[in-house]
């Protein structure tokens, strides 16, 4: 089961987005309206994941 570039974009990029900055965000004291920045980042990952999946599905075509 070789990993295609489509699968790489779809699978690894969203994981990197969530996992890579999490240490810095989680240990940061910054917050907006009482909500820690780590929570805001995870919500920003929602449209980012969609974009990666969209690009991956285009690659299929």
């Amino acid at each position, binding site marked *: 089961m070789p990993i295609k570039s489509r699968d790489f974009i779809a699978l690894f990029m969203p994981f990197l987005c969530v996992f890579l900055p999490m240490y810095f965000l989680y240990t940061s004291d910054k917050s907006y309206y009482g909500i820690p920045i780590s929570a805001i980042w*995870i919500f920003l990952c929602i449209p980012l994941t969609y974009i990666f*999946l969209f690009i991956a599905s285009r690659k299929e075509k």
Partner: protein
Amino acid sequence: MITTFVIVLFFAFLLSLLARRGHHESDPRAFFAARGQFGAILFFLLSVGETYSIGTILGFPGGIAASHSVDIVLWFTGYILLAFPVCFVVFPKLWEAGQRTGAITLPDLFGAHFNSKKLEKFIGILLVLLMLPMGTMQFMGLDTVLESLNLALSPHTMSFLAALLAFAFVAIAGLRAAALISILKDFLVLAAIVSVTCAVLWNWHHTSAPTHTTPLLLEHGGNHPLQSLTMILSTILVQAIAFCVVPQTAVATFSARDQSSIRRAQTWMPLYLILFPCLLAIAAYGLSHQIHTSKPDQLFLVIAHTLFPDWLCGFIYGAAALTALVWLGSVCLALAAIVTRNVIPNIDTKHQKKVGLAVIAGYIFISEAASHLQNIPISKINNIFYFGLIQIFPSFLYCLMGKKVRYSDIVLSISAGLILSICFMVWNVNLYGLNISVPALLVNIIILNNNFLYSKIKMPFSKA
């Protein structure tokens, strides 16, 4: 309130009748699994419907309010979000494996791929056992909704009503109807969450000044941030991967028309999580305005009741009840398919549907009874479910990769992983935040690959 609540359920009932038209529901394959009938839209609705279970709508804000911590926001959102990329890659291959083996359930796939009826039964029984906590979770939510209606009925009558309601939906519906009712449910859930969020934001400054003076509404994981972070990341990883082994999602995948329908549906699914920030806003309002509830899981419903007139609350409560019913519907149908096809395989086609419905009734009864045993938060039950499910993943991957191993190795590896997870959980072993499934999964993988590892170890010695 009760009138609008009943109207919602009545519409759902009408939709389930509509779904029966033009399809041969007497055929158990069509009734339980709707094989090959779902294009991208129906597949999307059914799969997303399962993402938004009662655990999300009640458990997520309830968990935030109970823990006052951002941790649940991170792992809960993180694992569902990352489950979509995993499913984007895995599901088309699962569909392909289903076509190759003619499987409509996960145990079918295991049985056909490893050519073992014993393994098929083992996986079937295991999945039935693992699905019990999830049924319990739906009933805890359904009971919470019915309690909030303030009907003049005893808790036992209420539970009986919830169980009857769930059975009626499943018995009438079939998988096609579950997908159709998802349309109504999703529309109502979206409307309910968005309207409660708008009301919360409007009321935030227009009501009396917040009594909670701490500037940070949600705390990071206490004195050991590194342990908490390890817990969050390992939980996200384990649960996002285990998500693709959920039995009813696998049934929905086998029901898809083709691989591109699956990929198209998966592409859009992350956007559906746009409701999660809204649920966080609702929980934050509850924390800052110190909304009191008898159970944390009631927070969403109590806030809706504080901000809206009774008749509008009926719609919101109806939406919450439908999330539980749709989820129960697809779980029950997947379980019935597993029991009638894999666990007790020699039932003739005429009796398969009757036996399936008896299984569903039994599952509903046990789940409902278990929901009264202990007052565990909904979000905790969600974790227990995935502890078990992830142990099936390594051998599931073997099915997709077309690799063969002895069935005894699979049974041994899954059992070892499960026993180790249960021991860690029962003895409350501190793994410095690491999800207890991770070491259990490593043991599972080592046992599954014992022949390969043995040959690798043996090779240098034989050369010498």
